């Protein structure tokens, strides 16, 4: 008898109607997911198709060809992985690869390894990583330092001070970046130059925007200023959850400021701060507006972060296919980074899924 009822039970469980019934709450979530998919997932799939074509404004917006009767392609042609090969490899190497002459590429690599690779892309790639590493380190340290100052025991009017210092978060990004562009202006009356001349550090106006690494440091300072409110918010709420008894006990036991910091405070704020760090690294990785507004990723395209590089290729040089390939490569790296970070950091737990 038990086997029969087992089968009946299983049938009941596999019944489509009851599965739908059990999961009817998904209907609450679906509208949001659908909306997001329409405007984000669909273009993401489309950009993949575009990256396999030679799309330009001249061919994509004319004609009515559709891939598989669905995806509008205009008169653009599918050219396979050509965009990606041209992106990663120098012109000579890319030509050899497309002709199947892999031996020639290998010879070129042996004689001059750098000549195999496409300089603009790898330059942009490395600058992006440098920007991520430097700016994230700066943001996290600045955020923790400010949060510690603003939650100090003896500071009066903390709440108002915190209200003031998180205001940059509400300021439109374009406003902040434009202002910082004028702070780092090449002109003698740019704020930074005035300051440096005023304290006697330099005699002449510093060419912030026309020197590669000076411009880069300007990007980093701006990014730090844009992101510190977020880090401060996260660190402050983490600091408020630090166990006060533990701190008192440490103080009674004679622990100084630094040992309290190292053994009590840092371990308790580690997880939320890690979480904020990962999110803010992703933001740094996708920084577009700072280099674009400062000097279009200049001087002479040397500071183009990946998204600026993609944007320039697509809209300034009308190479939609190539721009799409760069964008997707950038997305791939952000995706990998986030995936590893979420997996390693158990972030799903952080979101209240413990």
């Amino acid at each position, binding site marked *: 008898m038990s086997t029969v009822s087992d089968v009946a039970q299983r049938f009941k469980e596999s019944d489509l109607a009851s599965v739908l019934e059990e999961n009817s709450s998904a209907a609450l979530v679906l509208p949001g997911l659908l909306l997001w998919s329409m405007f984000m997932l669909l273009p993401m799939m489309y950009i993949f198709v575009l990256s396999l074509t030679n799309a330009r404004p001249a061919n994509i917006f004319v004609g009515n060809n559709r891939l598989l009767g669905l995806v509008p392609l205009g008169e653009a042609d599918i050219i396979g992985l050509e965009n990606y090969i041209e992106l990663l490899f120098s012109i000579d190497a890319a030509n050899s690869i497309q002709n199947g002459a892999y031996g020639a590429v290998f010879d070129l690599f042996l004689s001059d390894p750098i000549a195999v690779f496409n300089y603009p892309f790898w330059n942009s790639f490395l600058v992006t990583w440098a920007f991520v590493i430097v700016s994230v380190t700066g943001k996290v340290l600045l955020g923790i330092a400010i949060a510690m100052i603003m939650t100090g025991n003896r500071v009066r009017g903390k709440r108002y001070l915190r209200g003031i210092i998180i205001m940059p978060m509400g300021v*439109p990004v374009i406003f902040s970046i434009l202002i910082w562009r004028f702070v780092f202006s090449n002109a003698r009356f740019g704020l930074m130059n005035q300051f440096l001349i005023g304290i006697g550090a330099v005699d002449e106006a510093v060419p912030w925007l026309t020197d590669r690494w000076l411009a880069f440091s300007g990007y980093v300072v701006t990014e730090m200023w844009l992101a510190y409110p977020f880090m401060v918010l996260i660190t402050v709420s983490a600091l408020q959850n630090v166990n006060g008894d533990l701190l008192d006990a440490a103080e009674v036991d004679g622990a100084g400021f630094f040992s309290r910091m190292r053994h009590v405070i840092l371990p308790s704020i580690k997880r939320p701060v890690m979480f904020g760090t990962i999110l803010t690294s992703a933001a740094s990785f996708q920084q577009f507006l700072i280099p674009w507004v400062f000097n279009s990723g200049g001087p002479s395209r040397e500071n183009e972060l990946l998204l600026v590089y993609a944007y320039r290729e697509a809209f300034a040089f009308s190479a939609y296919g190539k721009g799409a390939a760069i*964008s997707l490569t950038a997305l791939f790296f952000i995706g990998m980074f986030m995936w590893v970070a979420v997996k390693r950091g158990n972030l799903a737990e952080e979101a209240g899924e413990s």
Partner: protein
Amino acid sequence: MSLATGIVRSVYEDLRGIVLAPYTLAKEFRYTYHGLQEGKIPPKYVAWTWLSTIGAVAVAALLMFPIYWVFTTAISGSGGSLYSTGGFELIPPNPTIKNFVWVIGPITTPENIVINAPLLGELFRIPVPMEPTYILDPAQFGVPRSARSNFLAYAENSAYVSFWTVIIAMSVIIPGAYGMSRRDFIGRKKLLYLYILLTQVGGGLGIAILIALYTIFQNIGWLNELLPLGIYYGAGAVPFNTWLLKTYMDGIPISYEEAAIVDGAPSWRIVYEVIIPLSKAGLATVFVFVFLAGWTDFVIAQLMLEDTNWTLPVGLYSYSGRPSEMNWAHFSAFALAFAVPLMLVYFFAQRYIESGLSFGGMEG
């Protein structure tokens, strides 16, 4: 309506705190002074308080300095360029508000009162039985009447875009967050995982897929249209804000709902009368974030829109230019008129945002 009254009350309390600050401060001074005299408070304690407060204020001042710099330029009389400004002065001589008058432009009493509805267009038109007179006359401030910025026109475009962003996004975020927080279904954890992945990637994702988006919008004929842009911003705001509100709702004890169920309340009443009032801080935070998504985006708007439809960020950018050519004072006034209201929102919403973003204290 408890949400609105709650926000009004807390803003009122903050304002009262600011206005009464000198009084509280004086009281504290007197207390400390007497304490010191009678030897109840050790001088070291007082010195430490002074030092750390001054240090904290100095840090805040340093962080806010760029904004103050823009402010001094906006109230300086010289409408010159960055090159002609004669160096920085902490308090500019002859402060004036004429640059702000230029931003707003002349305001006259209307000839007709027109009531518009979104999508439907004009509903009513009531003529006003009086000659148009100036409410704000730029000529009084030494600004020619014809010289006005496009601030109000851009603000109207921005408001239209943000209106749709908020409507669309909130109507999918609230049920989504409730479902994620209180119900279970297949793939719920996976979806939450996806949403967390997308939290900070949202904005950059928009730029990365910009080429595809532009091509699609061009094909459908949505270029230079405000409504699709508003919906697009709403869509982009879904993952982060759904997750944020879900985290907040997790902190509401389930026993409230159980009590309501025992009392026989239907599920819509539980949501309307238990969940929504209790998550007002979370809702306020999410509202601010969603609104700002539409109000402050620049990259997508500048690519999609033409100058008649520009939103405020694109308009602001158009007033910047080469330092030698741009009108630095006008630019600064325009920028502040755009940014200061938002800064105030953040100042007053600080405690809501802090509690909405506190990931640690949500186990509840």
